């Protein structure tokens, strides 16, 4: 398989950074630079560290270097009738596997099939001492040592440079139908919540612009029966809709206005915050475009036990991610120091003092 292993070069750059006390800014395809806080430093370019290392469809496992383009991985999987079941958003043509895992983002299928971190089986990591370490592996069950590979998911590169990642992959469903029904947001929430306690093969559910969309996937028969059971109109060629939802190509998601990601329990009734809402993940992940100050949004969301990220339209400083409770922040800082004792990787990308 094509590709290139530049781990020694990357390792050398980390060694130099340690010696010179230079902070490093890890870069892959640069597709998710809009997300999170600004970080400064010499660029550590991982994009040339690429290539699928191993993919044996029978094992349901794929291992690739972190700079491998996500689309290359998806193409290889599609050829084998497989997929990344967490349906990762790309947010750009150059998205790499490393960036996808470091940001821990998942698409519409997430509440029904699992998140990016759920599918990570192992990784090869370059830590802040310039050591190359391996954690986890290529097997589904592995409880030797702490689950460091999954800790890397959503750490935004603050703990180390992902060099290689092994993922569990799944067969693509044989059939997929999308049902659509006009309703209010409140009706959509209770409809989607009821799906959680019915034996139907749902793998995506969202509410957008007055319509509830439910995607059924599985064997031909299963999808057909579930459709009869649930009712609703089928939309032909629904793939572009789910793609647009995942990639934030639907009208207001891609706008320049501040976009907030509001995480709540799926059955929480509509939140009274002025703005435009789109509900994904069966109601568990809600997108909000609003002019309200973030502090006000956070306060309201906290009353229902949720949390808020300013996803787009931020100035890349301040509290973009929900602040942590003080004792948890202490643990985060100690963990950061344990992987990156000189504090060289992606300083301040998630929190100012991390």
């Amino acid at each position: 398989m094509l590709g290139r292993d530049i781990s020694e070069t990357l390792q050398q750059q980390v060694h130099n950074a340690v010696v010179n006390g230079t902070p490093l800014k890890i870069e892959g395809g640069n597709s998710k630079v809009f997300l999170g806080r600004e970080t400064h430093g010499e660029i550590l370019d991982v994009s040339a560290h690429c290539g699928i290392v191993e993919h044996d469809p029978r094992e349901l496992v794929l291992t690739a270097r972190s700079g491998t383009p996500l689309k290359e991985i998806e193409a290889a999987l599609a050829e084998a009738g497989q997929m990344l079941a967490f349906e990762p958003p790309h947010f750009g043509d150059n998205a790499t596997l490393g960036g996808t895992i470091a940001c821990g983002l998942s698409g519409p299928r997430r509440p029904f099939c699992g998140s990016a971190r759920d599918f990570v089986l192992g990784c090869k990591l370059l830590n802040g001492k310039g050591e190359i370490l391996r954690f986890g592996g290529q097997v589904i069950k592995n409880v030797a040592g702490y689950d460091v590979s999954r800790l890397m998911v959503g750490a935004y590169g603050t703990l180390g440079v992902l060099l290689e990642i092994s993922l569990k992959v799944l067969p693509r469903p044989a059939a997929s139908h999308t049902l659509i029904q006009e309703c209010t947001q409140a009706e959509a929430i209770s409809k989607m919540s009821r799906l959680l306690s019915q034996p139907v093969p749902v793998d995506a559910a969202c509410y957008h612009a007055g319509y509830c969309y439910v995607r059924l996937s599985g064997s031909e028969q299963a999808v057909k029966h579930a459709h009869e059971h649930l009712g609703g109109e089928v939309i032909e060629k629904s793939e572009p809709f789910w793609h647009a939802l995942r990639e934030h190509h639907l009208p207001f998601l891609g706008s320049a206005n501040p976009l907030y990601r509001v995480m709540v329990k799926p059955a929480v009734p509509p939140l009274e915050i002025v703005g435009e809402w789109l509900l994904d993940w069966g109601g568990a992940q809600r997108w909000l475009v609003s002019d309200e100050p973030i502090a006000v949004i956070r306060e309201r969301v906290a009353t229902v036990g949720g949390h808020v990220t300013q996803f787009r339209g931020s100035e890349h400083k301040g509290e973009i991610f929900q602040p942590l409770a003080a004792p948890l922040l202490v643990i985060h800082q100690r963990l950061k120091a344990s992987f990156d004792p000189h504090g060289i990787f992606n300083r301040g990308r998630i929190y100012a003092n991390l």
Partner: protein
Amino acid sequence: MPVSKDGLPCNRDAHEDLIRKLRGLLPPEAVLTDKEDLRPFECDGLSVYRRLPLVVVLPETTAQVQAIMRLCHALHVPVVARGAGTGLSGGALPLSDGVLLSLAKFKRILHIDPENAMATLQPGVRNLAISDAAAAYGLYYAPDPSSQIACTIGGNVAENSGGVHCLKYGLTVHNILMLKVVTMEGELLTIGAETLDSPGYDLLALMAGSEGMLAVIVEVTVKLLVKPERAQVLLAAFDDVYKAGEAVGAIIAAGIIPAGLEMMDKVAIHASEDYAHAGYPRDAEAILLCELDGTNAEVSEHIMKVREILHQGGATEVRTAANEAERQLFWKGRKSAFPAVGRISPDYYCMDGTIPRRQLPHVLRQISLWSEEYGLPVANVFHAGDGNLHPLILFDANKDGELARTEEFGQRILQLCVEVGGSITGEHGVGMEKINQMCIQFKAPELIQFHAVKAAFDPAGLLNPGKAVPTLQRCAEFGAMHVHHGQLPHAELERF
């Protein structure tokens, strides 16, 4: 206070002081010090390791747990937390200078939320009790370790327990949302959230399978799933164990993810059949049990496909359970494999390695060669779908040197698992049992990183010390021993 060289209180005065202070925090019946009362806590499910703790405490509130932890931290006394004690790797083995913290009184189901498909539990709730309580809503908790009737959710999180349905439904880590934990310093932390993810690092993943080394779990919120409309099981017999291994890969290659895919070899089939009378074919060299679940329509479709694959793969016989009673019977044979093997041999040693599925034929062949070499029979029981092997080495501990040979044999199996790209433990954990094998699977900088992760939660190193992650010193000694036997040169392992 006099302190021994490893920093632990070593004299009677210090012990008495600790016990007096614990009595000040807890009701009298919640502090046990009599030898007789301590006895039930001397070991977990791996009873070859036994040790009496200094004292057992049985708190019933989170505030009490915090107070105990603060006291032990201040007095520099180590603490080992314990759930139901069904663990199979000695992870809950007490320390003779330490406190054994039992969570047995934390057994309330706090809340079942069918609308959001989640349940909040105290750590001492039994695994099966969760599904029982959720059944009223058509929901259940997916991970089902074979000890599910007795094991508790706190221990399941600590061990990241699996079960026969992992391939499709994941391990404990995939099925939990939020934890409340108490650190060694007595701090109460909320890890994860009731939402599908939480801000900051994924500490939930770190806690799952941390073997009681990072914090004490005092509350668990789990995800509940809808009970599938239908579950159906197929039994296939093979005249060759390797053909059975190939068939496992063929089912998965066909795009079908069975809910469970189990394999047993001849020794295990016979033992199980004598014990459970499940109707397994005695003339088979191996059987596969393949459970398919989902909607009615999907299960019917998949059964047809899997039957075809099994026949094509050379199965001599394929049976579909005719009804729920027969399905239960097929499973009964598999689930009673361990006790069944226990009846045919004075002792057995259960291994828990994982391998990439494609290595199954190779690893089986090697195990059978070693079985002859050591003169020790092996019964093979596998979670074949996810490559998790449970070879049971049959031996007699009363025979001179047989235990030592068994351990050596077992060690070679685990080493082989690592060599072919697998792991020394799929679901039982490292605990005390596989601490030496950690030196095979991980290099020194990786072990150092693990110790540093522990220190981030427990800087004083007082929570379950000495388990799960070996010291470099220990690995050096283990390595030296192996060089002596001439069987594990492993030049890449750094020496100290």
